[in-house]
């Protein structure tokens, strides 16, 4: 597989996985990626983390560490639990009736599903971009300013500066600067998605979750989003769920492969795609199933 992105230099890879410190159940394929991430700050990690929809276990005892300010891709066939894992990180799973979790999911030293966690505050720190572009039916400006306005106390000029900065970060500023008061739904699909990213950035989050952000877009718009992810690398921790293995290979530093609710393998992206350690991973990336 051809790699378009050069790997950051601090990624001196240690492939030998030591599993001694990880509690393991006999059947689970749970692995730790502790050693792989030796030189990384860990922003989010889970240990034996499971999510249930009613009685159906969607992800099963996943232990995963996600490095700060890196792009981590989660791949896997449909129904493997990759979106569920992503939605757990900012507790969007709360919206689904009957959804509950077990185990540990920790962000910045605090358990995300802890009893004293306010999901509203959590979501201000963990932004999200959805599968389909979902701008509000408001003006472009109001869309971006929505998040900052929630906390209030910002003057008009501060707000305007923040909107401009977010739009510039999302590489959309030049396209929309002359029509900030137009309805956001008048933008093209790719622009809308970049607007959604800008909207998420305006809240100044630490993590950006992307749930198949290009699956509803055409190839050109997809390319623009991927370029944007490249721009954001190093500034934000990005977790991206994608169906598209090439995309994962192009944009991510690390890749996690989920299958039937289990985390099968986690590795630096070039390694996972070139020298997968697990048979299932190899089967999947070579297109034998999925």
């Amino acid at each position, binding site marked *: 597989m051809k790699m378009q992105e050069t790997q950051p230099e601090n990624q001196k890879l240690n492939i030998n996985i030591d599993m001694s410190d990880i509690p393991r159940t006999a059947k689970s394929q749970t692995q730790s990626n502790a050693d792989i991430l030796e030189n990384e700050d860990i922003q989010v990690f889970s240990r034996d983390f499971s999510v249930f929809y009613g009685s159906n276990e969607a992800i099963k005892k996943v232990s995963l560490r996600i490095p700060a300010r890196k792009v981590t891709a989660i791949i896997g066939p449909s129904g493997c639990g990759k979106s569920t894992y992503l939605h757990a990180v*900012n507790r*969007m799973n709360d*919206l689904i*009736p009957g959804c509950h979790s077990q185990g540990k999911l920790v962000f910045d030293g605090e358990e995300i599903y802890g009893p004293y966690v306010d999901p*509203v*505050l*959590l*979501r*201000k720190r963990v*932004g*999200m971009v*959805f599968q*389909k572009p*979902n*701008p*509000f*039916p*408001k003006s472009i400006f109001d869309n971006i300013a*929505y*998040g900052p306005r*929630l*906390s209030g106390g910002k003057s008009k000029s501060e707000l305007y500066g923040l909107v401009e900065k977010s739009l510039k970060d999302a590489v959309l500023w030049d396209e929309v600067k002359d029509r900030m008061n*137009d*309805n*956001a*739904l*008048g933008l093209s699909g790719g622009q809308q998605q970049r607007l*959604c990213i800008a*909207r*998420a950035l305006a*809240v100044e989050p630490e993590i950006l979750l992307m749930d198949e952000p290009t699956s509803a877009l055409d190839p050109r718009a997809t390319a623009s989003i991927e370029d944007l992810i490249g721009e954001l690398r190093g500034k934000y921790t990005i977790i991206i769920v994608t169906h598209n293995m090439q995309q994962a290979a192009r944009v991510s530093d690390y890749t996690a492969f989920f299958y039937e609710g289990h985390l099968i393998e986690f590795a630096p992206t070039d390694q996972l795609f070139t020298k997968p350690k697990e048979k299932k991973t190899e089967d999947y990336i070579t297109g034998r199933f999925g």
Partner: protein
Amino acid sequence: MKLQTRRVLDRSFSGMGYFSVFLLSASLIIVLVPIFVRGIGAYIFKGTVEFRRLNYEKFNRGNKETIEKEMAAVQKFRKPVYDMLAAFEKQIDNEEILNSHEYVRDLEEVKELVRELLGPAPGEPEAVMMRDRYGRTRWDKARKTLFHILYMEKWDHSNADEMGKKVMAPRVDQFKGTSFEKFFPYMEENLENMLRPRLTFYWRFLIDASFDAHLFGGIGAEVLGTIYLVLGTMIFAIPMGVVAAVYLAEFSKETGKIVSLMRVFISTLAGVPSIVFGLFGLAFFINTVKVSNSKSVLAGSLTLALLVLPTIIRAAEEAIRTVPRTYKEAALSLGASKMRTVLTVILPAALPGILTGIVISMGRAAGETAPIIFTAAVSVGRPLNLIETLTQPTPALPWNIYNLVTEHEAVEQIRHVQFGMVFTLVLLVLLLNLAAIILRARISKKLRG
């Protein structure tokens, strides 16, 4: 099934569809056209000099000099009428003609009709009733009165086998051979000169108070009462309805027992006959809670609010449910609380649907009669000011339409008011609906971008 049969079935089905749509529009036209045509007659008609005199004396509208000039002009033509009447009366009194007593009653009748037509004769003392102070203000009514002067009702019993027939006999025949004979052709020829009809646009019909049981003036009190009731209804119904809808659509558990029970209540409420709401309003709001000592706009508004509540809740809930889930997700993912999401994203996006429900309910509240009979409406009343609405009952269009038709002492005289009221009510509701359509279209366009 054969292709041929299927085609025939398809065609007959769509044919039936077309037919029922046609029937519906035809009946709508049959109902609306007379209402519009005759209702406009309350606003645009040929007004006589009496109408202008009334307007001047009662409302101080118009120019004093012109009216005096006009009155002087018509008096010139009216004088011979009174002269002829006086002369003939004198002849009777002096028994100058044969069987003079036979004419007394007939002449009285004619005098009464002339007074109806032209108003009090010069020199007569000021009448108590307003209707006796002015002649016919509308030309069409004047023509009718003239007809009654010229012709009288008679019953033809000549054929014993059949029932008596009504015939209109020329009145002039009764006075054949007397000096009064020439009175009738004079009336017929000079009616226009005596009343000076002129096309009048009386838009103040909408806002003028009525005088002497709707014989004069407009329907201002009724229109204002209706507006008060509609606004009052909305003040109570919109917050309650929208909050309930938000709760049902966003906060309640879909499967909860209490929620499903609530839904049953709402559906039941929608099916309760409106007269029952009226009785409930009387029993609860006036007799039990005592929001006012008697009927009042407040009590009527509360009752109407209950009546329209299910409509508003249903429309708003439907509208909220059709807001794309992605809006909600987006807002929540940005760190908005649930309440904030509802207020800033969901309600604005649901606004067109909610507005539609509200305006439909406004039309309903404007037109409902039964709930306000016991709680808010009176037949006669003056326009209220805002504070009085808390304690006072008011006339209102739907109730007064019914009241004029069933209980007025001179229905024939106020037909134009009836039609004017119905026309105004229909127009009010149509305008509300039109406003809703336009508003909805504009907001939807804004939302679509």
